[in-house]
Each structure stands twice: as structure tokens, then as C-alpha cells.
């Protein structure tokens, strides 16, 4: 019996392991926090080994090895082996930069289950401009090829925004050409770096509508050949996304320095107390950390969420978004059409400007 069984709460399924915040790319919508954690604070291999075992004991099934760029860790192969040894399904989320075909083969030997490579655009020049790294596109394609050569399953992740939204079809075609079994069409989320660059990234409503229609058409065209996962972008949605499947409900995120967060952006909410794997076990943190319990369940909700029929379906949406836009992390996610603040989101979506990106830097 785990501690979760005792509390009657279902166990978590996924662990997002941010191995480092170091990354050669500088994407202006990076999901890492504005305050990036330096190399000196990164957890060592031994601690990750313990964290993976504690995660598996807690019920976690999949470890998403992410960053920053996880390949910036010299011990990535050992970390991957440790996760696999703990019984976890290992998913490498990489920019593709800094990962040679040889190291990829070592990762495969170590039991890596799946690779996700991000592609910034189907147009090489635009892709390199978005990533802030010349030659990134070509190297990503090479890595994707190496993944497929090793018979590892490949997901291509494309982050959609105004500069590439008209090329969704080309990007999905590219994913198919590269041999991906799955493609994630992810619209920019406006937290941290994305929030800073919001007016530069925000697509127009007409573009979003064309993109949604394009995805439907692509799903039919590629049925059975590639799995297409796509969602409606927040600011144009009718209902909010069930962020991380509900706060403290399905997943945990360990930062490079060992802080455990309910979601990768949770530190943007002031006043939350996060516990570290340096001081406590993962089970203790999952059950008792004040940050995890802050928005668990439905008792923290206000109206219109509190009496909403969908309250256990979308869990009030995203706490970070409620705070970012309204200054109140317990408010209904204002992208919901039932939120009294929805008009504000629609107005923000109209703020579209052209200027140089504020790139993500350490």
C-alpha cells in the first residue's frame, strides 16, 4: 500500500525531470522559468537515481527527461539507464542539438523508449531564426533521421505561433517525411518567456481557425500513418485546458536543482512553498507539500468553477494563467467563456505586434 492508497488519491503517472536549464537554443516561448537555474545547482546522478526509484514506487510510469536541453548533461546516458532501471518508461525531450548519433545509440542501449524532437518551422531559415541558433534545423533533421535509423519511436513537436501557423500542413508533412509516428501540434503557452513575447507570437483569430481546419484535414489524410495530437490555443478556446490533468493529480515536475512542482510554471505563482528532493522523499512531497495541496481537488474553487458541471473535467483550467492575467491564482482561468474576465483575454489576443523577439537567455 502506498501513501497514496492511504489518502485515497490516485497515484501520479508522469514525472517531468528537468535535468538542466542549460540549452543552446533561445526560443522566445521557452517553458522554463525566467529565472533559470545554474549548472552548479543541478542534481547529481545519484540523486536522480533515488528520485526515479521513489517515483516508480509512488506509481509513476513515465519519466520525461527534459530541460533545457537534457543532452547538455554529460551523464545523460547514465541518468537514462537509472530511470529505466527503476522501471520507468523513458522519454527524451530534446532540441536535437548536442546529441550525436553515437550518444543516441548509447541511449538506446541504455533502454531509452522514445524520443521527442522539437522542430521550430518547416522553413529552415525561419526555424533557425525562431530558435535563435543558426543551423539548428539541419541538425534536428539529422537527429530525427538517426532516431528512426535506430528504430526508436519518434515524436516531432512543433510549437505554433504567428510566424509559422500558416505552415502547419508543411510541418506535419515534414514529421511524416522524417519518419515520426506522432506529431504534437502545440500552440505557444503564455507564461514566463512566452508571456514576455506574447504580442510578437500571438496569431490572429482567422489564422487559428484556418489552423484548426488544417489539422482536421491532416488527420484524415494521415489516418493510420501518424498520430496527430493538437489542442485549441488557450486565448481562442471556449473552455480552459485541464492543465496538467489537474493540479497535483497526475504528474510532478522536478527542476534541475530538485524543487518539486505541480507544473513547470508553478513558480510563477508567488507565495507557494515548494519542497525539494534534497530534503524529502518524493512520496512525502506528493502527499504533504503545501504547493501540491494548494489547488488540489475542488474546495479551493470560487464561482463560476465551484458549481460548474465541468469542475472535475477541466479543474478550473490553469492556475498559472489565472495568476498571470488576473493576479489571483484561485480565480477561474479567464480563457473560459464562463469567466467574468473573459473579455480581457479576447482583448489581449488582439494585441499583435512585430518587433524582435526577446530571446530566452540564462
Amino acid at each position, binding site marked *: 500500500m502506498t501513501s497514496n492508497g492511504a489518502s485515497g488519491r490516485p497515484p501520479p503517472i508522469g514525472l517531468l525531470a528537468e535535468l538542466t536549464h542549460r540549452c543552446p537554443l533561445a526560443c522566445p516561448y521557452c517553458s522554463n522559468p525566467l529565472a533559470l537555474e545554474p549548472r552548479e545547482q543541478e542534481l547529481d546522478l545519484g540523486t536522480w537515481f533515488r528520485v526515479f526509484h521513489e517515483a516508480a514506487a*509512488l*506509481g509513476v510510469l513515465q519519466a520525461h527527461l527534459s530541460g533545457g536541453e537534457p543532452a547538455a548533461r554529460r551523464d545523460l546516458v547514465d541518468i537514462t539507464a537509472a530511470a529505466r532501471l527503476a*522501471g520507468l*518508461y523513458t522519454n527524451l525531450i530534446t532540441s536535437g542539438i548536442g546529441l550525436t548519433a553515437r550518444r543516441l545509440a548509447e541511449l538506446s542501449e541504455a533502454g531509452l523508449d522514445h524520443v521527442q524532437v522539437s522542430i521550430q518551422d518547416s522553413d529552415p531559415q525561419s526555424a533557425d531564426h525562431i530558435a535563435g541558433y543558426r543551423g539548428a534545423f539541419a541538425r534536428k533533421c539529422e537527429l530525427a533521421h538517426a532516431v528512426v535509423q535506430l528504430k*526508436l*519511436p519518434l515524436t516531432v513537436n512543433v510549437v505554433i505561433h504567428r510566424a509559422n501557423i500558416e505552415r502547419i500542413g508543411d510541418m506535419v508533412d515534414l514529421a511524416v517525411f522524417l519518419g515520426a*509516428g506522432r506529431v504534437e501540434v502545440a500552440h505557444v503557452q503564455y507564461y514566463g518567456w512566452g508571456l514576455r513575447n506574447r504580442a510578437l507570437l500571438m496569431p490572429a483569430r482567422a489564422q487559428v481557425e484556418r489552423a484548426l481546419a488544417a489539422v482536421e484535414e491532416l488527420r484524415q489524410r494521415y489516418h493510420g500513418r501518424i498520430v496527430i495530437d493538437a489542442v485549441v490555443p488557450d486565448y481562442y478556446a471556449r473552455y480552459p485546458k485541464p492543465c496538467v490533468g489537474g493540479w497535483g493529480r497526475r504528474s510532478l515536475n522536478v527542476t534541475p536543482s530538485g524543487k518539486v512542482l505541480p507544473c513547470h510554471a508553478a513558480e510563477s505563482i508567488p507565495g507557494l512553498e515548494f519542497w525539494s528532493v534534497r530534503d524529502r522523499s518524493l512520496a512525502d512531497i506528493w502527499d504533504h507539500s503545501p504547493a501540491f495541496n494548494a489547488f488540489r481537488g475542488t474546495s479551493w474553487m470560487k464561482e463560476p468553477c465551484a458549481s460548474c458541471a465541468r469542475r472535475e473535467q477541466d479543474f478550473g483550467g490553469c492556475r498559472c494563467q489565472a495568476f498571470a492575467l488576473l493576479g489571483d491564482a484561485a480565480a477561474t482561468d479567464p480563457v473560459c467563456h464562463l469567466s467574468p474576465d473573459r473579455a480581457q483575454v479576447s482583448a489581449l489576443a488582439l494585441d499583435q505586434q512585430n518587433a524582435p523577439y526577446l530571446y530566452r537567455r540564462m
Partner: protein
Amino acid sequence: MSEQTTVAPPIAPDTRPRLPHGVRLVHSEAQGGWVLLAPERVFKADAIAADIVKRCTGESTLTEIVDDLAQAYSAPRERVLADVTVMLRGLAEKKLLEL
């Protein structure tokens, strides 16, 4: 087997179904049973589904798998074949199985 009545396109009897690289069936004590793990996805598998998937090793043919299951569950072979076909087709469509 389940009360499934859906009809799926037949699968050649000498097909040797197998899980592709990146798809694994594991038993999780904490999750309370069998789960099929795939890229960014997790599927709970009941005992019968797990029994079918466990046999999809790339070694056994569909005929052998169905014979084996029909015996294990003392169920009519045609019924087992129909149910297994529906399930394997469904998994293959989601890229969780190679036929």
C-alpha cells in the same frame, strides 16, 4: 472474453503481431494492474487485454495466439478470434501494435 460485438477487418492467420519499439506492457502495483506504455500515452489494460498483449511477441502467429487463448479461457474459438481481431486492429490503429 468481452461482450464486444464490433466487427473488424480480418487479420491473416499467419501474422505475428508484436509490440513496436517504444510500447511496453508493464504491471504496476501502485497503479493497481497492467498498463500499456506508449509515447506520451498510458493505457490501462484489464486482465484479458493484458493476456492478449502478452502473447503478441512477434513469435506466435495469430492462429497460435487464438488457440492458446481459447484453451486458457475455455471459450469458443470463433468468438475468441473475433474479439482478438477487434482488439488488435484497435491497437494497430493507435500505433500500439505491429501486424
